[in-house]
């Protein structure tokens, strides 16, 4: 099976866990799981009986009337009837907490670990909903009308309350299968999606002399440990019994003694510890920022220097750091220029090194200067820099030597290097050739050159990673610049990549605005230096592969030279031993970093999930968004290591295998149609959306750099961002009313329904907002409501609208306020502001809008219905 993912790879020994678990497990925990299994089995048979009583044919009747379940177009019906609220129709919401609550009530007070699995009634109710068979070929409206939270693990209320937030830590299967064999049967990937350094509004920070950890496997104490008595606690990962230190008996929050279970680290699953010097290899270094700027003719022409210098000037005060913060600048064209910013100089001194074959640092001090002491000089330099190169005739670019110089400069301290590049590097080490053949952009055959052309950048990144230097790359080019090779410098040094295709400060204002906003966020966001992240899990589970930007230092340890709050990670897991003797599986991610204030800190996230023994329960707990993201990561690895068509086939096979497995499991389902459990009903849709992503699509003209950038994004963005990229949210916003609203921090936010991504949903009278994560489109139909255009966009009618509007004006009308309130509510949780485009139906820009309508047919790709038929055909093979 060459075209399938190795979801279930070879086993390997996991060394981070204590070996001696056998003696301690049998004590109190084992009898209860056994009885649970017995009870669970009973509960399940009850569920299947329910199926028999209510055959799937009756399911469409549950559908709310205005949605219908046939294929004919239905805009009129959709417009006129406000769609039902999700909580009134169980077929939309996925999970139905109000319905679940009463069932779990009879069993609420058992707070011991072993009883953590909720009540019997609750289980079957929940399963009945998530396992409800859905015939995809008949049910059209499977998209929930508003954002659905991820499935909640089936835990007791006590544990659920303290479990890690799904925004930070998610697992593809919220019910962990007991054995690898069971996982293989389900044909679903097991993995974690992490966003460990996310900006948090509330984070308990703990300062104590001793950080309580397990003696043998070094897991941090967390809410899921059990206290055997006052003095001893039992680890939930290796079940070793540990002693509670004296200090831990005292609770700093309530100032009481003798209640170790009330300590913040036992009450919260996300905590941060201030680490002692045991956790340092060297004293915390100051925050050091080095900016490496391209000043060749091409760069000056694009005008990015102005934008950059202005942004940095504005944010100089807000750069994270303390009094020791240091800053430096290097510019390059065919030579490398350094700037002496020593305090006391009347103006910055430029030093030119033209020996790019063997680049050296002209003077060792004063190139990286204390920001506080030399602030005036830095400001002078930033003011002068855009003007200094206006008449340059230098078209060459010596990026490689400049990076080598940056590495040498940063070696002693580590820190962050931000590289701004506008063209293909043409001189010195690391020079690259153009590899793209424009004629092959839309080929349906294999796409070449997705991997790096040289290992120069990778090697440099590894050196940087070793010296704790993170490299962030901003690529602002209009031509092919071989991002596949250049991105390596960030990939392995835990940096981030930003790409602004055809950037120009005048001709492309949308791009320019986005660059400015991104810089604003980039410069001021939190940063962690010298970081490592270790992921520990319950004995029996082991880590298979990591995805993201980092260097893997050992089986469970990632080395991150820099860690930023906007990057996510994915981890593929495998089940190595049997989890039969446990009822809960735990995962702990510990991120050790130096803050910009020079403090060593450890951020610990712990996630706890139930272990199940039935295949149906595994399906019931599937988190489809997490599965999609993990599959996307795997597909990208596959397309680089093997080929794009292999990766695409593997994605389709993932759906086919999973649905075949489900069909083989449930014998009570009628054979015709394409049946999925309700938990997985969006699986084919999301996979189709992935196949139509820039990263993975074939047949549609895609520039190589854009494709590679899309791949980079899929690999290192957090889950929600990936989902928005893959399957954008579409809303109709011209008829938003205040009726379906949501009150949020005092203001009223209208809540239009999510629409399916098909042109069928668009009407010529409407205005539709599409939110793709990093870009937003406002599509206006030809006969769009004139009041909307006047009140929201400030133009008298459709014809007078300019074709390149990039923002919504602030008008004092109710319409405008409502629209802006909605958009800002969408943007609220987001750190990078998306580019905004107003798309008129008759402009050429509309193709960029229509390419996101993934349910529609394109010349080279299936429509959703065709894709379903294709899957059905594959399954019957």
């Amino acid at each position, binding site marked *: 099976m060459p075209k399938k993912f190795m979801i279930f790879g070879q086993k390997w020994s996991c*060394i981070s866990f204590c070996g001696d678990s056998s003696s301690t497990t049998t004590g109190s925990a084992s009898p209860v799981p056994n009885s649970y299994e017995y009870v669970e089995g009973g509960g399940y048979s009850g569920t299947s009986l329910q199926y028999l009583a209510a055959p799937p044919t009756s399911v469409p009747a549950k559908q709310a009337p205005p949605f219908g379940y046939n294929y004919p177009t239905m805009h009129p019906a959709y417009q006129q009837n406000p769609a039902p609220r999700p909580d009134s129709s169980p077929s939309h919401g996925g999970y139905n907490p109000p319905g679940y609550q009463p069932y779990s009530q009879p069993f609420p007070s058992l707070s011991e670990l072993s009883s953590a699995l909720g009540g019997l009634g609750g289980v079957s109710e929940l399963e009945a909903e998530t396992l409800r068979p859905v015939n995809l070929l008949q049910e059209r409206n499977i998209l929930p009308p508003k954002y659905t939270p991820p499935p909640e693990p089936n835990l007791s209320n006590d544990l659920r309350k303290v479990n890690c937030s799904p925004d930070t830590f998610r697992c593809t299967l919220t019910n962990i299968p007991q054995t690898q064999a069971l996982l293989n049967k389900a044909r679903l990937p097991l993995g974690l999606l992490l966003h460990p350094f996310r900006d948090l509004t509330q984070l308990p920070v703990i300062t104590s002399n001793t950080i309580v950890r397990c003696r043998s496997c070094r897991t941090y104490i967390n809410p899921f440990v059990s206290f055997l008595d006052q003095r001893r606690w039992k680890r939930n990962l290796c079940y070793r019994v540990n002693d509670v230190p004296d200090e831990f008996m005292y609770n700093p929050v309530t100032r009481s003694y003798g209640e170790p279970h009330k300590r913040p680290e036992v009450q919260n699953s996300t905590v941060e510890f201030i680490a002692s010097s045991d956790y340092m290899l060297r004293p915390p270094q100051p925050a050091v920022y080095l900016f490496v700027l391209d000043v060749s003719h091409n760069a000056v022409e694009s005008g990015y220097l102005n934008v950059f210098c202005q942004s940095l000037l504005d944010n100089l005060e807000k750069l994270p750091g303390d009094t020791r913060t240091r800053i430096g600048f290097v510019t390059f064209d065919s030579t490398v220029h350094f700037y002496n910013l020593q305090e006391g100089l009347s103006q910055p001194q430029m030093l030119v090194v033209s020996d790019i074959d063997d680049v050296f640092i002209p003077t060792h001090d004063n190139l990286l200067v204390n920001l506080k002491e030399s602030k005036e000089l830095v400001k002078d330099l930033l003011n002068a820099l855009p003007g200094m190169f206006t008449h340059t005739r230098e078209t060459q670019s010596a990026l490689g030597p400049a990076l080598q110089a940056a590495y040498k400069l940063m070696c002693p301290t580590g820190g962050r290097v931000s590289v701004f590049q506008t063209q293909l590097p043409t001189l010195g080490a690391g020079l690259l050739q153009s590899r793209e053949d424009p004629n092959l952009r839309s080929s349906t055959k294999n796409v070449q050159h997705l991997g790096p052309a040289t290992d*120069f950048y*990778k090697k440099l990144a590894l050196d940087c990673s070793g010296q704790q230097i993170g490299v962030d790359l901003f690529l602002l080019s209009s031509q092919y610049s071989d991002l596949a090779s250049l991105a390596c410098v960030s990939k*392995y040094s835990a940096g981030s990549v930003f790409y602004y295709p055809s950037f120009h400060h005048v001709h492309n204002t949308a791009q320019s605005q986005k660059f400015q906003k991104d810089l604003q966020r980039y410069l001021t966001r939190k940063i962690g230096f010298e970081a490592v992240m270790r992921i520990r899990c319950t004995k029996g589970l082991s*880590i298979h*592969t*990591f995805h993201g930007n980092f*260097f*893997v*230092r050992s089986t469970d340890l990632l080395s991150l030279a820099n860690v930023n709050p906007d990057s996510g990670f994915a981890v593929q897991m495998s089940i190595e031993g049997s989890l039969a003797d446990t009822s809960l599986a735990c995962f702990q991610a510990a991120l050790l970093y130096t803050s910009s204030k020079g403090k060593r800190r450890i951020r610990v996230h712990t996630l706890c999930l139930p272990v199940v023994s039935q295949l149906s329960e595994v399906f019931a707990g599937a988190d489809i968004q997490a599965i999609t993201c993990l599959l996307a990561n795997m597909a990208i690895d596959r397309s680089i290591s093997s080929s794009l068509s292999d990766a695409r086939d593997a994605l389709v096979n993932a759906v086919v295998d999973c649905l075949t497995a489900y069909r083989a499991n449930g014998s009570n389902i009628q054979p015709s149609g394409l049946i999925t459990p309700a938990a997985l009903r969006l699986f084919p849709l999301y996979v189709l959306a992935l196949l139509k992503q820039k990263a993975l699509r074939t047949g549609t003209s895609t520039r190589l750099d854009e494709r590679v950038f899309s791949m980079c994004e899929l690999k290192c963005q957090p889950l929600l961002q990936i989902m928005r990229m893959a399957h954008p949210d579409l809303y109709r916003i011209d008829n938003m009313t205040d009726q379906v609203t949501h009150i949020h921090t005092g203001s009223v936010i209208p809540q239009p329904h999510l629409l399916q991504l098909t042109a069928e949903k668009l009407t010529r009278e409407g205005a539709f907002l599409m939110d793709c994560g990093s870009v937003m489109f406002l599509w206006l139909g030809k006969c769009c409501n004139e009041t909307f255009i006047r009140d929201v966009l400030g133009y008298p009618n459709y014809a007078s609208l300019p074709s390149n509007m990039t923002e919504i004006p602030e008008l004092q009308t109710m319409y405008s306020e409502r629209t802006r309130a909605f958009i800002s509510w969408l943007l609220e949780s987001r750190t990078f502001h998306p580019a905004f485009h107003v798309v008129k139906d008759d402009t050429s820009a509309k193709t960029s809008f229509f390419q996101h309508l993934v349910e529609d047919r394109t010349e080279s790709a299936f429509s959703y219905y065709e894709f379903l038929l294709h899957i059905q055909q594959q399954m019957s093979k």
Partner: protein
Amino acid sequence: MAFTFAAFCYMLALLLTAALIFFAIWHIIAFDELKTDYKNPIDQCNTLNPTVDRVKKIKRVRLALKLVLPEYLIHVFFCVMFLCAAEWLTLGLNMPLLSYHIWRYMSRPVMSGPGLYDPTTIMNADILAYCQKEGWCKLAFYLLSFFYYLYGMIYVLVSS
């Protein structure tokens, strides 16, 4: 009983195979160390790949011969010897490994120096498991061929 060229080839191959067996064991140990966290992947790949140290100024390329290439070269060397000695059966038995070596080297990751292993992907569970399995298979092959060469040498010596 005469000391022919073929007999000489077998004797040489016998000695070299003994060396290869040690290489294979070393290879297995190296990957086991990686798996059990004893070593950093960068260091380990540097020992596994032959490193090219470019000495500054003198511009002299010094090839510090390490593991992978010597193994391949030794194997190629006695394959050529068998070819010259017209030992077709022995050559045929070695062909699969020879072609595997060529394929392996052709499909290595993009690298500026010689070598096979990339520190950024080596920790991937699939690749690590593959390399370990490769080590064990080679060990088995070399052990079997060691005894075969012994037999071949005696046979050639006796028959001629």
